[in-house]
């Protein structure tokens, strides 16, 4: 895009600046719209599984429900608790929301359609997702209230625990792809199994890693059944108890943007990203964005499905699953995958 703006007679610096801002808007605005629609979809799926109708009043089939909610929240009064730490109280939701958008910079939407095509793409995703915990922790502390504080403690322990196993799972993928660049990882999945199927998930050594990644992703985004940070029976509403109006809405949007990011990562790392599922020429006529979007929607359906059907974990079970099952398993698979690659690809 920089070249296009340069052809309009701008200097390189300005062209780069304008192109980058346009790129950010091209990702962030559809993402926000997508989050609004995905909240609606989540409620609809959840309702259907509970044999209810879900939102069906605002707009045709209730499609405008999220926008009505957004408007309502915007018009509400922002209440700041008098005992809170005001500056941090207001910064916390902004941190959550910004961090949720930042990671999208390295997601490849099509071959070449990527905002920042950097060498350390996957490390960047890991770095940004490790920042997500700050929004929650700062909110819990600055609210100066019991339940948000408990929730912040839970959230930080939970996110750190699952980040460890996610790191090892990603290492397996990186070992196989031989690159940290997400675009290279997607290209490496082309015709991965028998030259027919696109996606590391069809590889018997990486399939268990995908299962672990899906579950860890739910824990990392504090999504049901791991939503202990907002367990309403114990913690009122968790870290967002004291929040109202737009500050609350930012948490809401950030949370769903994070869930979408996890779905996108599932698609990009294990299911071939913007590639069609089968390496068959006619399928490549469908634009890559469509394939990626379909995969993201499928994984979001899985996330909703799990939310609607699985009861919430107990906290000790959550910790046990993370440290005693996922961590040893992912470590074992790092050894297996690297051993296999040593024997076959990098023969010693």
């Amino acid at each position, binding site marked *: 895009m920089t070249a296009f703006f340069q052809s309009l007679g701008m200097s390189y*610096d300005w062209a*780069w*600046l304008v192109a980058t801002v346009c790129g950010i808007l091209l990702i962030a605005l559809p993402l926000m719209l997508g989050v609004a629609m995905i909240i609606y979809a989540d409620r609809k799926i959840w309702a259907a599984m509970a044999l209810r109708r879900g939102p069906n009043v605002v707009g045709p089939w209730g499609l405008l429900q999220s926008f009505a909610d957004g408007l309502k929240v915007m018009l509400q009064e922002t209440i700041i608790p008098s005992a809170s730490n005001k500056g*941090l109280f207001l910064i916390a939701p902004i941190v959550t929301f910004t961090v949720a958008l930042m990671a999208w910079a390295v997601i490849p939407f099509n071959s070449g359609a990527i905002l920042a095509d*950097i*060498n*350390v793409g996957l*490390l*960047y995703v*890991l*770095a940004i997702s*490790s*920042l997500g*915990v*700050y929004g929650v*922790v*700062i909110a819990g*502390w600055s609210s100066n209230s019991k339940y948000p*504080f408990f929730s*912040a*403690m839970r959230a*930080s322990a939970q996110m*750190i625990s699952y*980040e460890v196993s996610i790191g090892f799972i990603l290492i397996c993928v990186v070992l196989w792809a031989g690159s*940290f660049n997400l675009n290279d990882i997607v290209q490496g999945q082309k015709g991965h199994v028998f030259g027919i199927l696109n996606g590391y998930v069809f590889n018997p050594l990486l399939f268990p890693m995908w299962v672990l990644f899906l579950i860890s992703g739910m824990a990392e985004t504090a999504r049901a059944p791991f939503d202990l940070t907002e367990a309403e029976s114990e913690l009122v509403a968790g870290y967002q108890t004291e929040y109202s109006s737009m500050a609350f809405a930012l948490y809401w949007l950030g949370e769903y943007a994070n869930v979408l990011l996890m779905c996108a990562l599932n698609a990009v790392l294990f299911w071939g990203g913007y590639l069609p599922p089968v390496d068959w020429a006619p399928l490549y006529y469908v634009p890559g964005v469509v394939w990626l979007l379909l995969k993201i929607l499928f994984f979001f359906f899985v996330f909703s499905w799990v939310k609607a059907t699985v009861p919430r974990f107990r906290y*000790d*079970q959550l910790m*046990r699953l993370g440290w005693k099952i996922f961590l040893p398993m992912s470590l074992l698979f790092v050894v297996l995958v690297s051993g296999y690659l040593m024997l076959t690809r990098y023969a010693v």
Partner: protein
Amino acid sequence: MIHAIAFYLFATLVVASAALVILARNPVHSVLWLILAFFNAAGLMVLVGAEFIAMLLVIVYVGAVAVLFLFVVMMLDIDFAELRAGFIRNFPLGMLIALVLLAELVLGIGAYKAGVIHLGTPDGMAAPLVGRSNIESIGALLYSKYLFLFESAGLILLVAMIGAIVLTHRERKDTRTQNISKQVSRRPDEATVNTKPEVGKGVQL
């Protein structure tokens, strides 16, 4: 131009937030400024082309170490009056540390002014690896030339971790732990009894 703007932005923010770490009254604010300083330092690393180090800085320091710092500091019960009371008593110690740091700074700048440091060895092993990404060149050095140092660093960390666990772990007799497999294998017919007691009589369990 963008490069220069970015450099001055990151550099100013690093220095300012580092100053605020020690100036902030509230320890939690100090930790948060420290995080901002780490973050901007990572930005500077990206500018000099060390993107791998930058990402590690964010993942390790911002993502893990600082979270634990914050965790501990948040749990402290801070009494500001008490914090100020110890100021005069600890003043000499503080001055001493400040002097040591100043001396180090002067030495560091002096050494930097003396000339460029050549990290490479005469045999040319550490010559710049042209045309390779950051990660590849670091990996190529770590797993060949510095393999022994790398492995021993890992071993030291392992020992430190085990040591910390051994030192802080204590076996408590009065706690009940949950046996997950026992809980999962429990079935309704083992857990409930269906009885029909006579009126006025209790149930023997």
